């Protein structure tokens, strides 16, 4: 009766349902509108300027629905006076930039804010640089105080637009969720290794080995999806980053677990040694993957001060797909592990029967 759960099918279909939802929503849901770039990127203070703004996934229609603002510091906001819609994703804007700015810098980065009545706000930090030949202190500061529109827009199911990440933010549902599922499987494997050391029941060892092997497959899949993401975000499949290198080391430690198992012929000895190794492998993985990359500077989100699952990168729409993705991959992993376990159990049964017969 102990392993009856693995023969039930309702949870397997639940996992398939989750994954079907994840693949559909993960590809189908669009990104929210955002600003890609503004040309020219540098303008001089104290004169009229013209600028072309290119946005992504926006739907500009009427110029009167669109307002464009430049902002720096806290609350220093200037509305651009002329806005023309070129097409759904492009605006031609013009405005007058005052000499006065409340800093003594000769160059200042300004954020750009676009408010479209149809789609809401788009924000681009450090969108343009303003240069000043003189830091005059005229009374033009009044030009820098503009109220941003308070009206909101209807909530739509769309993923957040993040600079650098853009569409690659969808990899959260693949790379990150697969690794989360891998950790769950490794915890199960660790638990059964400890159970084996207490009980000396070879079935516990079979469960531990099955989960560890499937976790390694998930880990490698996670590394491949991460590598593809890196190619599109960092420009390279692999870089000398502590998070990447140490994750690879953690994977190698678990690959060595498989080699260790296959190199020992005695069932009891193999089970005992691999259970002890599994405990140490898990303990080694925690600093390698979770602690050391956070202590050093790292490009990888979630490390070296880079945000990952916090408010900067994750929002509720992403979570609506991300959490089901973790559940879905975990269930798929448990399902495959259960099949591997049942094969091992059959092998153990036939080995024991052969021994009894001889």
């Amino acid at each position, binding site marked *: *009766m*102990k*392993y*009856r759960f693995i*023969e039930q099918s309702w949870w*397997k279909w639940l996992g*398939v349902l989750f*994954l*079907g939802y994840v*693949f*559909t929503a*993960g*590809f*189908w849901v*669009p*990104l929210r509108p955002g600003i890609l770039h503004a040309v020219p990127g540098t303008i001089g203070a104290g004169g009229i300027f013209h600028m072309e703004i290119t946005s992504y996934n926006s739907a500009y229609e009427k110029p009167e629905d669109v307002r464009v603002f430049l902002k720096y510091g806290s609350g220093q906001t200037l509305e651009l006076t002329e806005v023309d819609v070129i097409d759904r994703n492009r605006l031609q804007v013009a405005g007058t930039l005052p000499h006065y700015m409340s800093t003594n810098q000769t160059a200042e980065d300004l954020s750009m804010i676009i408010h479209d009545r149809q789609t809401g706000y788009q924000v681009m930090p450090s969108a343009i640089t303003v240069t000043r030949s003189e830091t005059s202190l005229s009374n033009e500061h009044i030009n820098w105080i503009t109220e941003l529109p308070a009206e909101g827009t209807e909530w739509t199911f769309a993923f957040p637009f993040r600079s650098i990440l*853009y*569409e*690659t933010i*969808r*990899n959260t549902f*693949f790379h990150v969720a697969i690794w989360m599922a891998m950790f769950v499987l490794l915890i199960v494997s660790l638990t059964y290794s400890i159970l084996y050391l207490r009980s000396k029941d070879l079935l516990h060892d079979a469960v531990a080995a099955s989960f560890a092997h499937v976790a390694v497959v998930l880990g490698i899949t996670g590394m491949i*999806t991460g590598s*593809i*993401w890196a*190619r*599109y975000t960092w420009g390279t499949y692999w870089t000398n980053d502590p998070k990447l290198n140490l994750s690879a080391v953690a994977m190698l430690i678990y690959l060595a677990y498989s080699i260790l198992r296959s190199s020992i012929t005695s069932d009891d000895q193999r089970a005992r040694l691999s259970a002890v190794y599994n405990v140490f492998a898990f303990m080694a993985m925690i600093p390698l993957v979770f602690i050391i990359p956070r202590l050093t500077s790292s490009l990888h989100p979630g490390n070296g001060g880079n945000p990952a699952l916090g408010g900067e990168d994750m929002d509720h729409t992403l979570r609506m797909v991300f959490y089901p993705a973790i559940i879905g991959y975990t269930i*798929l992993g448990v*399902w*495959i592990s259960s*099949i591997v376990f*049942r*094969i091992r*159990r*059959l092998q153990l*049964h*036939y080995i024991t*029967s052969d021994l009894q017969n001889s």
Partner: protein
Amino acid sequence: MSRLFPLAFVTDHYAGESKLIAVIACVLIILGGIVFFLLYLEKRIKKLEEEADLRT
């Protein structure tokens, strides 16, 4: 870059909505294939377990 980023090697060729549906359908068919393969394996294992009297 299209929203088909995870299939980066086909990205912009499939950016149109109808082709997006086609790719999602392909991914779901692959998922279905994996599921049916696992179900097939379970069926085979179940038969062997019955022979070995290992059913729980």
